[in-house]
């Protein structure tokens, strides 16, 4: 039996988001959306996390951090890019310090669109992430 679908713990990292998606990620945990219903815990620690929720895009300084956080997550793990910036660089794609979406650095499993991404889409993204997590586990098993 696999418990991954019932206990997805997330790590949220703000790459270079405008806070819009970040606070929506947090909002998912609060009473109106209550992600904990699905067993989701916002761990704040890569070593405990199964799903990396990442908002904002890659820039010169955070690129190492993103890599490092991902590397420190134990397998199996899934990356969910939340919001337009994380998906592609969004409106800031042409800013001088933006290198692009998260997929420039990490293998992104789920793209959540929106500027800012709505909680409903984020929850949907997490649920899709759970599916990806299951698949990865099966592959590795």
């Amino acid at each position, binding site marked *: 039996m696999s418990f991954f679908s019932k206990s997805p713990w997330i790590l949220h990292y703000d790459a270079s988001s405008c806070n819009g998606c970040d606070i929506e990620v947090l909002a998912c945990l609060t009473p109106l959306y209550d992600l904990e219903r699905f067993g989701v815990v916002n761990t704040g620690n890569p070593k405990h996390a199964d799903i990396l929720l990442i908002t904002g895009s890659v820039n*010169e*300084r955070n690129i190492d951090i993103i890599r490092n956080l991902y590397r420190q997550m134990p397998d199996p793990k899934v990356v969910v890019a939340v919001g337009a910036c994380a998906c592609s660089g969004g409106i800031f794609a042409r800013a001088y*310090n933006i290198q692009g979406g998260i997929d420039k650095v990490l293998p992104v499993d789920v793209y959540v669109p929106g500027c800012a991404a709505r909680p409903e889409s984020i929850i949907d993204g997490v649920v899709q992430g759970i599916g990806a997590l299951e698949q990865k586990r099966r592959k590795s098993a």
Partner: protein
Amino acid sequence: MDRQGFLARVGEYHTNGWRLAIINATTVPPVDAAEPGIFEISWGFAKDLEFETIREQVTTADEVPSVSDFFGAAFLYENEMRELFGLNVTGIGLDLGGQLYKTSVKIPFSHAAVKARLAATAAATAAASGKKA
């Protein structure tokens, strides 16, 4: 720039109870001028509802004295000017050693960088109108 006169004016604002509201640098066109290009710096001071500025035009070759002796909070602005505009700000109270930001484009507000951006925009516009046509 007149270093002594400038610092005296800043000091006057300080003694009269003004606070530092902003230090802002602007890349002054034409951006294709031969380096060193010209930059305009505004020191904005606020007191209650009033707002006044000191203006100076400098080049990267000039020495821009820090005002952190008067206004401790100036260090962020000044480090930023140095990193983003390449200005030679000296005597910063908390010198972050060029590590405030880390940017893909070095000195992104230098004349060369601005010029490159404008050129890219022009090219993109041309391409877009070309496509339309």
